């Protein structure tokens, strides 16, 4: 393969949405048999560029060539015919049908309703096996853990022999050993000549796997270089243009009395016998692989999942929480794992979302909403949390991912909560917004709240927490003090070993 033969050439691609320039003349080239990382903050234009390449969006101007030939990718179907497979950040699988059906969804609709199921299952298994995973193709997709669903997504993209594979944040929901497996697969695909475009926020992974790194900022390419020539600081600089602050802001809080104690909490079959205590001003991490029961523990404490056994003490009093309503009334707040499905009413205004948990504060007589008061409150919160919003009455939909997440956090600022449970609060959020979310967590702690912080990113746990539990298979494997927090120790516990 010559140096100047590119599998993909996108030249001067322009795209705007109703007057906003999402892409202002982007030129992007990637070779066959390489893993090309595309990095940039949320809103930089990565996803837009890839949606144009896959046919989901139409470019306003520019040229796209595949293997040197100019192509017109007018629909996602045309994109697939050209060998372009894309795995979106948000899953696009149908939850109620089987894995095999999802993988071949496209083909199912072309076979006149007659399906050779045996053949279909065999081929689905073949593809999944080739990825190095074991998933029964006859499982109903929605029953699989998120990580396995991600693999099904990739299998689906590969089902029609893609020669270009686009992955948008593929590791966001994967645990470390699953990431390692995925990387093996990617390297296999790469040596088979597939051109892989890899979008991610995780620098470590990019430096581990990418051959070439291209940075985008505000709809333009700011740099492109082979990995060997790249330094992490330079990349971040190119991404954010000199806006990098301290990643983990320092917190100086003296711990107060115990605010939450959980004893022998069990919610079979997801977790059992979980005990921990939390003091005011403390940030307690819960680390572990995806599916280790962390989310379920938080939900159980909050009352999100109904019945479970065990005992919860809040401010020294035994409490029984069966519903989120009682959880909130007792002063427990939850920032759920999935902001779009659980955290936000996405088509409603920012102000409405911000006051949802404390609507009482903006109500007058007869339950009438005092809109001016609400707007003022929301504006104040936008200022305090640096939410970049045009108008507080705009829908949350109009915000970037990081700002949306801040709205979920803002919701609890006006409640009198004593404990806040954070489930992956920085998932799918750009570097700048992450730092701001860390700052907010510190603010919660400084105000005397107890914070429980679930995260799959170990640097976060290490950087932010005073103490961390490590969970595996629904049980607490161990507890690490601040000075013992290291990736090696967390990982050892997470896979079931002991601390050294």
């Amino acid at each position, binding site marked *: 393969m010559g140096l100047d033969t590119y599998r993909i050439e996108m030249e001067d691609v322009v795209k705007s949405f*109703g*007057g906003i320039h999402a892409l202002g003349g982007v030129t992007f080239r990637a070779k066959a048999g390489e893993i090309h990382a595309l990095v940039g903050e949320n809103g930089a234009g990565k996803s837009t560029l890839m949606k144009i390449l896959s046919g989901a969006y139409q470019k306003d101007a520019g040229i796209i060539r595949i293997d040197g030939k100019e192509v017109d990718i007018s629909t996602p179907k045309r994109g697939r015919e050209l060998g372009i497979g894309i795995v979106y950040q948000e899953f696009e699988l149908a939850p109620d049908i089987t894995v095999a059906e999802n993988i071949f969804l496209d083909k199912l609709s072309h076979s006149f309703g007659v399906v050779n199921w045996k053949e279909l299952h065999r081929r689905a298994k073949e593809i999944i096996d080739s990825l190095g995973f074991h998933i029964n193709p006859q499982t109903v997709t929605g029953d699989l853990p998120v990580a396995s669903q991600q693999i099904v997504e990739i299998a689906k993209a590969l089902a029609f022999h893609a020669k270009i594979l686009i992955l948008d944040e593929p590791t966001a929901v994967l645990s470390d050993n699953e990431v390692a497996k995925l990387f093996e697969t990617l390297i296999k695909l790469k040596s088979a000549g597939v051109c892989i475009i890899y979008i991610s926020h995780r620098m470590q992974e990019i430096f581990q796997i990418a051959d070439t790194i291209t940075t985008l900022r505000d709809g333009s390419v700011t740099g492109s270089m082979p990995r060997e020539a790249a330094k992490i600081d330079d990349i971040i600089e190119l991404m954010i243009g000199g806006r990098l602050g301290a990643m983990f802001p320092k917190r100086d809080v003296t711990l107060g009395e115990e605010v939450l104690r959980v004893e022998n909490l069990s919610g079979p079959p997801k977790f059992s016998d979980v005990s921990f205590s939390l003091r005011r001003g403390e940030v307690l991490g819960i680390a572990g692989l995806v599916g280790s029961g962390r989310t379920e523990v938080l939900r159980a404490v909050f009352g999100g999942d109904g019945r479970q056994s065990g005992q919860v003490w809040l401010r020294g009093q035994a409490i029984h929480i069966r519903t*989120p309503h009682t959880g909130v009334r007792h002063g427990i707040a939850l920032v759920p794992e999935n902001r779009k499905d659980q955290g936000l009413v996405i*088509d409603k205004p920012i102000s409405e979302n911000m006051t*949802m948990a404390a609507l009482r504060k903006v109500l007058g007589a007869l339950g009438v909403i005092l809109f001016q008061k609400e707007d003022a409150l929301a504006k104040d919160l936008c200022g305090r949390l640096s939410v970049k919003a045009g108008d507080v009455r*705009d829908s949350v939909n109009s915000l970037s991912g990081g700002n949306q997440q801040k709205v979920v956090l803002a919701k609890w600022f006006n409640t009198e909560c004593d404990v806040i449970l954070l489930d992956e609060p920085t998932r799918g959020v750009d570097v700048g917004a992450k730092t701001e979310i860390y700052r907010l967590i510190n603010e919660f702690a400084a105000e005397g709240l107890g914070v429980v912080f679930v995260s799959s990113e170990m640097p976060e746990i290490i950087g932010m927490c005073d103490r961390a539990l490590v969970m595996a298979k629904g049980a607490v494997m161990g507890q690490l003090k601040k000075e013992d927090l290291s990736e090696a120790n967390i990982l050892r516990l997470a896979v079931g070993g002991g601390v050294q």
Partner: protein
Amino acid sequence: MMNRETNGPGTSERRGAAALFSKFPLRKMIPVITLALLLSASIALSSSFLTPMNIFNLLRQNAGLAIVSMGMLMVILTGGIDLSVGSMVALGAVLVATFSTTMGLPVLLSIVLTTMLLMVLGACAAYFVSFRRMAPFVVTLAVMTVARGAAFMISQGKPINLKPTNPLIRFGKGSFLNLPQTQSQQTFFAVPYPVWAALAVFVVVMLVLRYTSFGRLIRAVGSNESAVRLSGIRVGAYKFSVYVLSAGCCALGGVISASRAAVGSAQFGEGLELDAIAAVVIGGASLTGGSGTALNTLMGVLILGLIGNIMNLMNIPSYPQQIIKGAIIILAALLQSSKRKDTL
């Protein structure tokens, strides 16, 4: 799904450029435009359209539907559906006639008792929907047959005539400020009582939906139930109350039906649930919940009523009328849905 990449930096830019369009988005204007077009067409097509008698007949005929549609709107906003409204109206009419005629109770007491009984029945449906998490379609379908059956049982299959002295008859047929009694002299000041009742219900529902936490939260429940629940709000209570309120609206609708016809019959309200749903949908509400307004629903009612009225004036027989009505409903819904694609 909105693309996150597009909306970070330039949101304010868009606000400037398309401010005019976003202030009056076409989708939200469709009910008004349709209504205006239909009105103009009606005036042009028939000289007898714009007379006080015709207009008030039109409004009087649709007062019950308007009230029932307000209840339906609240249910639909939560993402539910209430198929029982037609039968509930019949049951309401039969009950109020029984109480005030057969049992000889005072009219006001009869109305209160009717409303309470229907709300209890509504509460049964509400319980299964909100606390047993059953599908609203199924539960209200069951209540639909229960209510109809009860109406037939209570009336023993025969219409119950109101006594000529029953004040309900004056309510159904009379109008406020109706000084001259002859119909030829009727003026536009003489708004019929049922229309006042519908107007009152509309105003209350509109204010509640627009300005109160209740209105906001039932919409939010329809948009994303789990986000609302995880904000510590008792979603079940909100879902419960909309079915009860819808039943209350049906009671009022039943009273109006009985008072207009001077009779309570178990055959009232056949297919009314479909008209109410159609009115809400023509008014641009989403059947999956979360969006819709009282004003637009009222316009939906008027659109449906106008279609019927003008076809009557033009002497179109009733069977073709149904087909034309169906076509117009599809058209209205089509216009709304085609506009939604803007967001991509």
